[in-house]
């Protein structure tokens, strides 16, 4: 279990509490997200889990302001989510979208655009172990390297909160381990992590809290220990045991 910040001492983080109130997101009359209330504390690593189509990625995009809710509110630090607050967040997508330029130029682009210290480029690349590939075209990196670069680019914005949407999906175990190490280090540095995965073992390794989604609703919200040791809902139990299909059939 990685070293973590004291959850009762939020002084090491700049992140704010995220509160979802009566949040809904509809598409063509179908309610895809329906969260009456959910509070994410400003510290630690929360893993958002759930089966495919549960609404995990949608929830992340809503919290990051990429899509507007059909109803309800997202409060960050007690205030409605604003463009300025979105700038204090970063999102790493499942499939990294890298610019058609070198590894270093991808980082430098963000540092320049966000008026950050451009001399940090090397340091950021070293944090994700890509310094030796700085001049290589970003799109010619392997999948794992591309994702590490995407995380470095996200960290270049100095986010309070880092959302990661299944960043290790379809990566080899070595790349998964590297990315988990980077994320854990960021959490240790005070970045609030909200990590989407449907890999139960990965969730066990990373989570301090778990939000379990099913059909767009929060089926369960608990500390990692409580969730993994004594899940309260049938759907969470079935999911953790790998028999969700049986539950669906019944």
């Amino acid at each position, binding site marked *: 279990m990685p070293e973590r910040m004291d959850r009762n001492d939020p002084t090491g983080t700049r992140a704010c509490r995220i509160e979802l109130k009566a949040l809904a997101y509809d598409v063509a009359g179908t309610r895809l997200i329906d969260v009456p209330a959910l509070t994410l504390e400003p510290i630690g690593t929360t893993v958002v889990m759930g089966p495919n189509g549960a609404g995990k990625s949608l929830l992340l995009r809503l919290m*990051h302001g*990429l899509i507007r809710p059909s109803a309800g509110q997202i409060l960050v630090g007690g205030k409605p989510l604003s*463009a300025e607050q*979105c*700038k204090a967040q*970063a*999102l790493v*997508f499942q499939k990294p*979208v890298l*610019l*058609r*330029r*070198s590894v270093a130029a991808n980082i430098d*682009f*963000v540092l320049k*655009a*966000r008026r950050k210290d451009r001399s940090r480029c090397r340091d950021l690349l070293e944090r994700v172990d890509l310094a030796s590939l700085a001049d290589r*075209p*970003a*799109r*010619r990196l392997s999948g794992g390297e591309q994702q590490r670069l995407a995380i470095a680019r996200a960290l270049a*914005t100095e986010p309070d909160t880092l959302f990661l949407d299944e960043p290790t999906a379809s990566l080899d175990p070595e790349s998964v381990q590297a990315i988990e190490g980077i994320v854990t280090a960021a959490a240790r540095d005070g970045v609030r992590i909200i990590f989407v995965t449907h890999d139960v073992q990965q969730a066990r390794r990373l989570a301090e809290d778990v939000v379990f989604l099913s059909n767009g609703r929060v089926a369960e919200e608990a500390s990692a220990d409580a969730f993994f040791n004594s899940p309260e809902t049938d759907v969470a139990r079935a999911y953790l045991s790998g028999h969700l299909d049986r539950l669906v059939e019944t």
Partner: protein
Amino acid sequence: MQQIGEAIELAIGLLLAADADLLEIVTLSLYVSLSATSIACVLGLPLGAILAVTRFPGRGPVLVLINALMGLPPVVVGLIVYLHLSRSGPLGFLGLLYTPTAMIIAQTILIAPIVVALSRQVLEDLHLEYAEQFRSLALSARQIIQALLWDGRFALFTVALAGFGRAVAEVGAVMIVGGNIDHLTRVMTTAITLETSRGNLPLALALGMVLLALAMAVTAAVHGLRAGTAGHADA
């Protein structure tokens, strides 16, 4: 067939002899068409990028208009530019009629819609790929446009080539505003027209072959540049 053989022989002869008149015409053709292409790109690429990124009321009709302008008849453009630059026209005081500058203006007007329309399509496709990432990074419209223009640079080379191809092959507009004056405004296409009207078909054909070789050389040079630099980024 005999004329074609004669023309090939003549074209090779003209090139090998480095005929001074031919070189003058070739140089002016390149100067006019490359200048027009450069100006059209400086104006048209940012405009294409703005159209690719922004949404505003009336955008649809604007796109239809720009696409329609891609088919502008050169003689109509030449006539409009002539009316503006003629002594009695609103810009007559500039004294530009029958100068290479007038020819550059006409060709710029002719190819700018091509550059705008094609770059808009190229950059809109690229923006579709980047849009969510750019929104996540909270970039301004200006930053997005700069990033798209840089990342789309290799595809935009092809757009510029399309503009150059239209410019260098065009005859109607440059004939009207340039007047085909020997040693002043005579370019490849107007020279070919003149030699054809004189009945000197082998020379006209030879000039046509030189023009074709010229266009191919410029295209090859741009492709060479593209291939040489693509390895440093990612096409």
